[in-house]
């Protein structure tokens, strides 16, 4: 299934913003072409099959693989770029691409705020208007249409909100100790951190860890807050999350 990216860009001349949007969209198409594991001819698919080396690929491939390797280290393997033994960095590409597109838009002269939502993971930059922060609803996985929390960007020039949920389980959320789909008591983990690349990876990793280990691990990361919802409808959050709600 596809991922919907939606942008909300505030400020800037309409012509300049339009041009930046087109550039951002073109960038996302390009990312899709290079990284999609569902296209046999993408560079990543060919790299994964051993038909290309990293040096043969677009420079973004090396960049993403490096970021993914760091995510694997920090998460002790709970975030992984391997699936069924094959290289598959899909788990980091979406957040990375969305963050990059948001930054491109924010660099447009006159733009004061960007909200970029890539498949439910959000990068916020600046503010929608003076004295008003961005506000992001966190969908309540157990109450359709309801919100579990609202995160505010007040006081933060950049803030990302990424959610990993049970709908992802099975494909890319794997227990590194067993190599099988992670058994977790969670239905959703939302991570709030400055950048979407990391927020997305940490949400994936914490989800796989389960509520106890996931919460403890998120607490240990600087500038990272988390909201964890268990299948039993318990809500657990890191100590600093309250300051980000609003």
């Amino acid at each position, binding site marked *: 299934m596809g991922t919907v990216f939606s942008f909300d860009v505030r400020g800037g001349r309409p012509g300049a913003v339009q041009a930046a949007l087109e550039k951002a969209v073109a960038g996302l198409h390009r990312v899709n072409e290079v990284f999609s594991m569902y296209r046999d001819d993408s560079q990543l698919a060919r790299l994964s099959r051993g038909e290309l080396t990293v040096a043969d690929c677009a420079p973004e491939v090396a960049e993403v693989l490096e970021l993914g390797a760091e995510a694997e280290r920090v998460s002790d393997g709970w975030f992984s770029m391997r699936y069924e033994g094959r290289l598959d960095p899909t788990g980091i590409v*979406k957040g990375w691409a969305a963050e990059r597109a948001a930054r491109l838009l924010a660099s447009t002269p006159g733009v004061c705020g960007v909200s970029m939502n890539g*498949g439910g*993971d959000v990068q916020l930059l600046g503010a929608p208007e003076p004295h008003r922060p961005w*506000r992001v609803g966190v969908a309540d996985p157990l109450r359709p249409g309801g919100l579990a929390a609202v995160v505010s960007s007040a006081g933060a020039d950049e803030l990302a909100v990424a959610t990993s949920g049970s709908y992802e389980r099975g494909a890319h959320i794997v227990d590194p100790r067993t190599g099988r789909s992670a058994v977790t008591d969670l239905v959703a983990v939302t991570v709030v951190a400055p950048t979407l690349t990391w927020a997305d990876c940490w949400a994936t990793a914490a989800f796989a860890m389960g509520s106890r280990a996931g919460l403890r691990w998120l607490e240990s990361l600087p500038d990272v807050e988390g909201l964890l919802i268990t299948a039993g409808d318990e809500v657990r959050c890191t100590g600093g999350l309250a300051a980000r709600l609003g």
Partner: protein
Amino acid sequence: MHALKKNRPLRRVVLASAATVSSMVLLLSLKPHSTPAPAVAVPAPSGSAGAVTGTRTVTGDSVQTRWGPVQVRITLKSGKLTEVTAVVYPTENPRDQEINSFALPRLRSEALQAQSADIDTVSGATYTSDGYRQSLQSALDSARG
């Protein structure tokens, strides 16, 4: 809900631009196992609300999905989204009807909830069909434009 998922390449880009607000939705086949959050491109409180008074009804584009066309109609009162109705949706077989009886109220509730909470966007797992979302986006874009 899984039957609402579809796997297809980018088909359509919805692009809207106003003086201070631009929003856009597109599809990428990057992450086939996740379901996107609602593209509840709630009309920005400052962007259009001032200019729009009274009640307006706007019908979104008919969006072709694997199961048939989907089309959404929205009602705005003084620039606020007050109703979302699917006017066209797949009903050909009992499975369609089962999905729709589950999904459509949920999608409507997501759209309205997002607005009532005065939020800019939503993070998280939702079960929103792309067709519904795209038609909703086009209706909101038309209403704003």
